[in-house]
């Protein structure tokens, strides 16, 4: 196995990538998890990330970009430190998902895929996140917040702004 000199990732992430590239019957299977973990660390999938993952998995950069462009959670531009993802799909829609989205737009002063000027928050309208029975639901990064109202949403945002929010990685 060609040893890939680590260039942009932390030693922990680099070690995780070495392991990921070794456990599957075919190395390429590690691509999607690696893209996610790289994004978690770098903030988005940069050109440098694409180049290094391609090298690590013996793929063309084109292969990596093809996969990258398919999955909705992967992004090629930085998001806010806390990416607020509001579900408006049917179950959430019926229980106030759109109201919540509008509330977030007003409170944060940004639209869909916008980032606040301080880089703290970004906002996204997302499709079903699998929390239908606890609707309306929002994910901040990977953390779920269920059964929300605009007032509860304000409290959630205030927690993150004050550095008290849970940041699941």
């Amino acid at each position, binding site marked *: 196995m060609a040893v890939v000199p680590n260039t942009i990732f932390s030693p922990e992430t680099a070690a995780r990538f070495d392991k990921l590239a070794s456990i599957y*019957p*075919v190395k390429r299977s590690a691509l999607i*998890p690696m*893209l*996610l973990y790289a994004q978690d660390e770098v903030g988005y999938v940069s050109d440098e990330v694409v180049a290094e993952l391609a090298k690590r998995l013996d793929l063309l950069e084109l292969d990596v970009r*093809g996969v990258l462009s398919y999955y909705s959670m992967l992004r090629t531009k930085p998001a806010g430190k806390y990416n607020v993802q509001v579900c408006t799909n049917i179950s959430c829609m019926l229980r106030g998902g759109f*109201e919540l989205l509008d509330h977030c737009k007003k409170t944060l002063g940004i639209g869909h*895929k916008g980032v606040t000027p301080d880089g703290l928050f970004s906002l996204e309208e997302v499709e079903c996140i*699998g929390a239908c*029975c606890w609707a309306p639901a929002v994910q901040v990064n990977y953390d779920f917040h269920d059964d929300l109202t605009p007032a509860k949403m304000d409290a959630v945002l205030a927690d993150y702004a004050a550095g008290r929010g849970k940041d699941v990685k």
Partner: protein
Amino acid sequence: MPTLVSHPDEVKVVSRRFGLGAEAIDKYIELDGYKAVQKAIEQGPEWIVNEMKASGLRGRGGAGFPTGMKWSFVPKVSEKPKYVLVNGDESEPGTCKDHVIFLHDPHAVIEGTMIAGLAIGAKMGFIYLRGEYRYLLKIVEKAVADAYAKGILGKNIFGKEGVDFDIITQTGAGAYEVGEESALMESLEGKRGVPRIKPPFPAVVGLYGGPTVINNAETIANAPHILLMGGEAYAKLGSERNGGTRLFGISGHVERPGVYELPMGYSLRKAIYEVAGGIKDGKQLKAVVPGGSSCPVLKADEIDVGLDFDQMGKAGTMLGSGGIVVLDETVSIVEFALRTIRFYQHESCGWCIPCREGTDWLKKTLTRFHAGGGNKKDIDNIQYLAENMMGRTFCPLGDAAAMPTLGFIKKFRSEFEEYLAGARVEHPLIQIQPVGEPELAGAH
């Protein structure tokens, strides 16, 4: 954190350990965990498949294919390694049952995966969760690590010479289409989640070209219970040709939304009015989407039907993924149909033209209709488009978009006609898009 709900009519099989701390391996073992897999090792593959067949268990992902039969399709001898692939890419709007399984009973999924592996002669299994379920992945990862530490996974499991089983866990990165089994394999191989042409079916040529059994996480989590209680006993819990129980996620306009485990064949009316506490705020029921957003809608007077695959089929809809979405009298079907189709348009992988173009035109037509710019031909056009998507795509996503659309038009045609005549949604939820203007920033 999802709240656990309970109702006296529930029959708890798969949810038996929910809320009891069974995510910890010692607790799981205390609650009869990993007994079924040991029994399976002793009894052998034929016995496992026979018990699964006797149980009448049908795939809980939505298609309802008999699980025992699926396992029996895998060739006994294969040059390439065989695999078990657990589909936890739960993405059908209205569905959140696997969410609670991974949260409360991850070892049941692991044990079920091992049982499927023993049945087909696989030594490796994959548990694939949707990308949004990162916190659940961590729970499953810990469970897998604990199982390795106890010698339950790995080489010579339970000290049995030559019995090996490995499990790899990972998540996707956001794609509804990857819930389709062949697209799931593509995604696991590190590619775009585009479906494969069938045949060959995964049981013959699957993951990495090897024979592969792909089951929904709930289906897999049922396997240990079936082997412990016996296939026949499990079958008796349900209705004819629909063995056992099922996790139903009841959401939308009900008093007590939640995931409830009910016997197959349980009355849809009772599920809504008794189990979930009836319609929220004393309002009237308007419609029910009974099994995730791809199932044709039922009107308020059509809910005296049993919740199993066959009875729902007779009622002109599907049991689907068991996500029951309840709509009260205030919901505009035009708006609900638009939101539904926006999802499918967003998620179409773009390979098959009827799906790619069909969902896009349905979205465009419904968006214009919703904005008040519809014309007389639109209703028929929507129907025509949807009818021409049905059965003309490689995977069921095209059908999944067409079926609910046809249902809305068929059951609520008068509402579309009234809308055309000037009736409007009093407080539109979806932003009205001015006719003839480019798509608003933020709409997708």
